[in-house]
Every structure is written in C-alpha cells, then in structure tokens.
C-alpha cells in the first residue's frame, strides 16, 4: 500500500463514518420504536415493504457500511494480529463484497 492509498482509505473511513453517524442514529431510534409491544414477521413486513424512502435510506446504509467495516477491520488485523500485505486486503475485499451482496439482498427482501 502506498501512502496515497492509505490516505484514500483514511478519507473513505471518515466520510463513511459521517454518513453512518446519521444512519445509525436513525436506525437506533427505529429499533427502539419497533420492538415495543413485541414483533411479528407480518407486522414488520407490513410496515417496511413498498417504502421508497426507507429503501433508499437502507441502501445508502449498506453502501456506507460496505466501505466502513472492512477498512476498520484492516486496522485491527494489522495492529492486533500483525496481518498486513496483499493477503489481508484480498480477504477484506471479499468481506466487503459479501457485506454488499448480503446487505442489498436483505434490503430487497425486507423493503422491496
């Protein structure tokens, strides 16, 4: 990794963090509101399906977390386990792809 790409990752981490700060605040409030009085699958899906606004919101959430989680894990793997170099970045790239695919699949099945 060059200095320039390290700087790029730092910038992506902070930019995604700023987006996530908003997403997580909304998500926490939604969780606490939604779990009141218990949950049923039908009740959840009747509330969530067909809303373009929530679909857009959670798509942005998934995209931001796709950037944020692997970059965060990258520092942890490097500093705590001493795992650096190409193999670490390849594994994290696969992790990012998995988060993106699974996340968008979840968004589609709950909100579309």
């Amino acid at each position, binding site marked *: 990794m060059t200095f320039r790409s390290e700087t790029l990752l730092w910038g992506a981490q902070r930019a995604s963090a700023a987006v996530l*700060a908003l997403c*997580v605040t909304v998500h926490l409030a939604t*969780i606490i509101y939604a779990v009141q009085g218990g949950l049923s*699958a039908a009740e959840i899906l009747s509330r969530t399906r067909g809303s373009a606004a929530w679909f857009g919101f959670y798509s942005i959430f998934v995209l931001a977390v796709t950037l944020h989680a692997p970059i965060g894990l990258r520092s942890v793997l490097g500093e705590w386990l001493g795992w650096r170099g190409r193999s670490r970045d390849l594994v994290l790239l696969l992790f990012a792809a998995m988060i993106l695919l699974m996340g968008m699949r*979840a968004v589609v*099945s709950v909100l579309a």
Partner: protein
Amino acid sequence: MRKESSYWVAIVHRVSGVALALFLPLHFWALSNALQLDSFLAWTEQPMVKAGEWGIVVALAAHLGGGLRILALEFLPWRDWQKSLAAAAAALTIVVGLAFALAL
C-alpha cells in the same frame, strides 16, 4: 497501571467495531431468510438471545459515540474537550442501552 479515559474509549470503540462487523452477515442473513418465519422471531424470545441483542445494540451505540468522538477530535479545532467527549460517548451508550432494555 492507570490508563486514561481516552484509552478505554478507544478499546471499546475497537472491540464494538469488530463485534458489529461479525454480527452484520448474521443480521443480513436473518433479514433475507428467517424474517419470513415467525419461528425465527420465537427463537429470539430466549433470554440469552435477548441479552445478545441488547449487547449488539449497546455495541452499536458505543461505536457511534466513539466514532463521533474521533470525528470531533480530528475535524473540530478544540482539543481540551477530550475527556468531555469520552464522557458523552459513554453517556450516549448508557442512554441507548437503557432505552432498548425498557422497550424489550
């Protein structure tokens, strides 16, 4: 060995981040498949699962608090507020944790 409050906030930020990253695939899997089944929601009624849910919500709040602290430290000009920010991060975590526990 005495550590600064900022050291502990950094450790909590890191550990909560790893926990959230590991939780995400499970969360997405559950939303894509198991949410269609009330049997999955019945499984989540177990005390251990509820405790786990509470823990991950608290981890999310802690990570949010710690992250806001880092953004403030790096992008805002004032630096004497480090301890106040650490306290604010802890307070936010406790508030969300209590609110979620009461709502469960």
